[in-house]
């Protein structure tokens, strides 16, 4: 058997399943999006681009688009900043292998929690009367703070949970990556009078630029799938303060309106937007990481 054929035969089954599933659901969504199907009546008819045109005049849709964009930027940037700072801190302060491994193990725990469990834990922590977060704020004479009910900070409060899960996970990855770096350039930098933070800012982190960009891309894709977290914590509220596109699609398609065709059009637009955006981000990422 030639190598080509081997590759083809081993990849074919999985690819077939994936393509079928993706095509059927995408095709289905596309079909629904040009109809006026709704949950309350069984029949529907062809309406062409009507749903798409209505989307372009829907303020709530654009709000959701904006929330989604903010969510992406905040969670990706937050995760990376937390991970980089914590990893450097652990790398510099914890030298014993045993302690390091224990810390890494502890940092892995949050991401192993199911999203829904994490969401419930933090809803409790954020609770205005019973929550630990407000007890802490109280120590500094602040609060009580309505973490999830205040539209100004609700999205940020949910993002904190996401960053708590993924930032700590990425910290573990970065700690391990820092350990694999060659020591010589770091020692050369010490002899070149660089302080600890300068060594990391100018030598170690630039050496890890490729892996960090990869982590950012992984997180960006992952952040698109935060429906469960936001749904459990705020359900998109208060008002539409935390309503991302997938939440709005769910609300209008299944939950409230039952307007399946409208939600399908939204999903199709979401698909197009993310595909285009990620193509650009991917290209840029590949260029930077070189």
């Amino acid at each position, binding site marked *: 058997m030639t190598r080509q054929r081997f590759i083809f035969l081993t990849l074919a089954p999985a690819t077939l399943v994936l393509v079928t599933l993706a095509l059927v659901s995408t095709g289905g969504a596309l079909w629904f999006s040009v109809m006026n199907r709704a949950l309350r009546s069984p029949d529907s008819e062809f309406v062409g681009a009507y749903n798409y045109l209505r989307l372009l005049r829907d303020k709530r849709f654009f709000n959701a688009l904006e929330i989604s964009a903010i969510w992406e930027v905040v969670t990706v940037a937050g995760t990376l900043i937390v991970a980089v700072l914590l990893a450097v801190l652990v790398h510099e302060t914890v030298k014993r292998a045993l302690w390091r491994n224990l810390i890494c193990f502890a940092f892995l725990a949050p991401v192993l929690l199911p999203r829904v469990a994490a969401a419930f834990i933090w809803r409790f922590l954020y609770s205005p009367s019973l929550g630990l977060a407000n007890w802490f704020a109280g120590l500094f004479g602040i609060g009580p703070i309505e973490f999830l009910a205040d539209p100004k900070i609700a999205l940020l409060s949910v993002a904190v949970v996401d960053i708590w899960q993924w930032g700590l996970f990425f910290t573990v990855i970065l700690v391990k990556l820092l350990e694999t770096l060659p020591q010589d350039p770091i020692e*050369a*930098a010490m*002899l*070149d*009078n*660089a302080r600890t933070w300068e060594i990391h800012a100018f030598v170690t982190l*630039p050496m890890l*630029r490729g892996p960090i960009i990869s982590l950012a891309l992984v997180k960006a894709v992952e952040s698109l799938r935060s429906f469960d977290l936001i749904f459990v914590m705020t359900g998109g509220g208060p008002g539409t303060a935390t309503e991302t596109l997938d939440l709005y699609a769910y609300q209008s398609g299944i939950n409230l309106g039952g307007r399946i065709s409208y939600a399908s059009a939204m999903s199709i637009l979401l698909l197009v937007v993310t595909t285009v955006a990620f193509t650009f981000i991917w290209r840029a990422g590949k260029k930077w990481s070189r």
Partner: protein
Amino acid sequence: MANISCTGITKSYGAHPVIDGLDLTVADHEFVVFLGPSGCGKSTMLRMIAGLEEVTAGRITIGGTDVTDLHPGARGVAMVFQSYALYPHMTVADNITFGLRRLGVPKDEVARRLRDVAAMLGLDALLDRKPKNMSGGQQQRVAMARAMIKTPKVFLFDEPLSNLDAKLREKLRTEIRKMHNALKTTTIFVTHDQLEAMTIADRIVLMRAGAIEQQGTPDEIFDRPATRFVADFIGSPTMNFRMGIIRNGVAEAGSIRIPLPPGRFAVAEGQEVELGLRPARMGLVAGDAPGAIHGRVVLIENMGAEGQVIAEVNGAEMSFVTKEFRRLAPGDAVSFALSPDHLHIFDRASGRSLLNKDA
């Protein structure tokens, strides 16, 4: 003024000391080479002077200042690593000037010094390149430029040439020595290559298992090795050793008889010793010459200008070097002798040379 002095330096990893109570002084402007087999503690010693490794006990001073507890950057030393240790994502210019920029040296001053150093090391055309687009020799030049631009009190080299091919190694070796002749910066250079050490050093510090075995000029180390270990380590081809005995002022080993100049060796009649004969100090002689060694040629290694002849003497091999090797063929009977005053005699038990100090 940048003399270095190390007193009572001890370094342990766990319970086992790698270096044990080592004392060393390096004079201002001196070019000292740490030489020794791999694993004997050369790098460890160098890294302690650089501050990259903590000392377990002992003090280090540079230019009269106790630097034992100073940060590496504060010691005024620059180091060149075997692996080059360049900052991989920075251009050559940024690599070289990194240290000066950390010190906040003004921009035009940095640019001026960069130009000088780049010109001296022939790096002008490469300043915008990244390290990965350069050959090993070019990368090591950049590392040297990075060390030089800081005008340090002390240069430290840790096997800087070991990753380069033989030709380039020779070329850079010459350049390093020329650089030292011009700048006169106190230098410690680590190598396991005895030829490199011989050619470049003012003084060789020969180390063995974390202690100094002998230190001295290359000539002293070559011609007056203090121990059998030094004699064996230095010189290529390596020295021939034979178990022997002293009888009537003659060193005897099998059929070999070498008369001893009176007073040269501290040996007693009938003492059991080990003789050392350097191949490079031997040559062909007539069969009846005094001190002649008779053997049968086993193998001839052509080294161009001269050849190493390996002969069988009393059932063991002994080698010597001669320009007239082309006259010989394997199987020939051959007579050769050691030049006068080049015999080495070692105590069998301690391995110490029995040469008298003033002889």
